[in-house]
């Protein structure tokens, strides 16, 4: 099967049960995407699939041969990454690649005018950022440092 990740097409011989997350981590050596739960419950495995954020543990790799996958390794010095560094938006770092990929996807959703349950007038208010990022758990509790990091990356 084929898998296009960060602009490179890979040809792989995989068990059809292999998830996209395991394909990245176990077969392509791209361990930036993390496995926190393997059940779509934590967001640590978030990557961008054709630009949209997804939980890669919930996808079978074989079903996405025609997609473009972007992982944290493919975000080279993105403003969200810089924001996380400047605001100390992490501690142990295990949720971090997922948080960053999720934030990148989220900012694009805002650009497209997608609403969130926070329903603020300003789609990038702190309450909106928090609501939109709530699929990504951080057990270290680095949330208060992530919100300004994301706000900064959004140019606020």
């Amino acid at each position, binding site marked *: 099967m084929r898998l296009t990740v960060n602009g490179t097409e890979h040809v792989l011989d995989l*068990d059809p*049960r*292999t998830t996209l997350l*395991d394909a990245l*981590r*176990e077969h392509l*050596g*791209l*361990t*930036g*995407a*993390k*496995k*926190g*739960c*393997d*059940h779509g*419950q*934590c967001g*640590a495995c978030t990557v961008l699939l054709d630009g949209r954020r997804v939980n890669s543990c919930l996808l079978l790799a074989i079903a996405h041969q025609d997609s473009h996958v972007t*992982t*944290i*390794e493919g975000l080279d010095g993105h403003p969200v*990454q810089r924001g*996380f*560094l400047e605001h*100390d938006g*992490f*501690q*142990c*770092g*295990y*949720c*971090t*690649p997922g948080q*960053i990929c999720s934030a990148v996807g989220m900012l694009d959703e805002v650009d497209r005018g997608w609403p969130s349950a*926070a329903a603020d007038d300003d789609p990038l208010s702190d*309450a909106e*950022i*928090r*609501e939109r*990022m*709530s*699929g*990504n*758990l*951080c*057990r*270290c*509790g*680095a*949330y*208060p*440092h*992530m*919100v300004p990091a994301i706000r900064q990356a959004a140019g606020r």
Partner: protein
Amino acid sequence: MTTTTKAVGAPLARIEGPEKVSGRARYAAEYPVDGVAHGWIVPSPVPRGRLTAVVADPTGDTMAVLWHGNAPSLAAVDDPELAVLQSDRISYRGQPIALVVADTLEAARRAAQVLHLEIEAEEHETVLRADHPGVYEPETVNPGYPAATVHGDVETALATADVTVDVTYSTPALHNNPMEPHATIARWDGDDLTLYDSNQHPSGVAATVGEIFGVDRVHVITEHVGGGFGSKGTARPNAVLAALAARVTGRPVKVVLPRQAMFSMVGHRTPTLQRVRLAAGRDGTLSGIDHQAYSQTSRLYEFAEQTAVVTRHMYAAPHRRTGHHLLRLDMPTPRWMRAPGEAPGMLALECAIDELAEKLGMDPIELRIRNEPSAEPESGVAFTSRHYVECLRRGAERFGWSGRDPRPARRREGDWWIGTGVAGATYPTMAQPSTARVRALPDGTFEVAIGATDLGTGARTILVQIAADALDVAPERVRIRIGDSTLPRASVAGGSSGSASWGWAVTGACRSLRDTGRDEVTFDSTELVQRQETEGRHAYGAHFAEVRVDAVTGEVRVSRLFGMYAAGRILNARTARGQFLGGMIMGMGMALHEEGVLDPAMGEWVNHDLAGYHVPVHADVESIEAAWLDETDDRINPMGSKGIGEIGIVGSPAAIVNAVWHATGIRIRDLPVRLDKILDGLPAS
């Protein structure tokens, strides 16, 4: 040598930050190891019984199916949970009873799912009750305190007091759930064992696993750790299983715990039942305090949490009693979770104090200040420093406490009842012996090496700051090496003691190098640490919460959470803030969200994943702040630092619970505060 500014205290950015935001930081399961096979743990489906046979599907593509019937025997160590696959006895549901090894993760997982287990199940008991006939008093509680203390006559104090409080608070099982599950890759080269392992103590894991396999050379690599919160303090079954499977198959083996297994085999915070009785005069002066704590342990191991120990030194009172009571159940062994003892103990004590303030009609801050001790009330030893009252006063100013109407259910804004609450915080200041090495390199830099770990605490960065000041050089000239058991032996990253313990050794090594002009110095802090006098060493803090409770649904939101701390010298203002806030957020989880829900029939926590076990998410954390006093304490260690990793979760749950009462008039004495517990008592609008 001249340097101008001191590195310690500066808000230095985390050294490993660029690696973490780019995905380059490697965690245990992520090392590329040639020919690695995958091990999948088979958990026991019953809480008690005997495993009599394991039958693998003959068509499955596995390399090995290990269980007690065929696993090599291992040397016993202190922790019986590490005697994996050694006996037919099943002591809790979720206990590892077999390991399937296969070429791929998919094959191993599938084979584990279809494995046929023959089990003789036995009657089991899984529910903690204070009146259970099996309840006993342990000899000591962690880490070696007497289980019970009595001073004066607390019963008479209670019988003759103007005002008394007699309340029972309960806390549920709580689960550490670091985001990185426990994981190990094991590889043997002859009798040399290499473990890439996620833990809080590489030196300790190497020693333990070496003992189990009877080998001297165990190399544990723990470069980055995705959190632990106590659950990775010692070797866990994953390390032993991976090494065992690698021994049997002759291949390197990777064992990663699925999230579900994180609820059972790596420890959790024991549920507690706590009865607190307070006796006080009209003016609020306490005459008696009694704190009796009930908690559970497993059939395998006596883990006695020190829940009521904190009450021995928090407030003055002439008559006092504390006690611990334990029940063995067919349940997983509780272990350490962030502030074990202090977190649940201070929930009960600080809520009881709030209830006393209500009865006295007294401000809860004034009540606490009234009972400030001048020395440790039970031991009589002096405090090295104690600025609890200052935390309460300064915190109250910053939070905006004055003018608060003490009566509950008075403030209504739209659909919300608003309330505020306060609670104290404390955590012991500890240090353990460690060894550090420093080398002066030809390029003018210095290499500092110590077998410590950084779980996200900022330890790596802080050690550079400490070394820079001790060497009298800029931090850019210090290179740090940690996370490897072949480096000089370090103590565990636990008990909020990492920076103090490792910093002590690093300071010793660096000062000696600077003063002697040698190229390399190795310094062992054992003697200095053991020479410490008996003194009351504690960090203090005060937590303030403002909550709003939906008048219709009972939903609780924390609008503001504030912590004011006196924790010695703050070594890095930036990472310290993360530690304090992270602890407070976990405290919010303890107050409102987290709960292992037990199914007594199955002996398991039914909500054993991150969909069922709720931890705080982005949207739960609104306004949250931490601040600290400039506290100087030159009696504790060369840095003058107190541990800060745990104090944030001590007292913050009580502040929230007390604020819920203030908002609604409802006392929730059974955590977490769920809306179904509030709904019936909500005040009429």
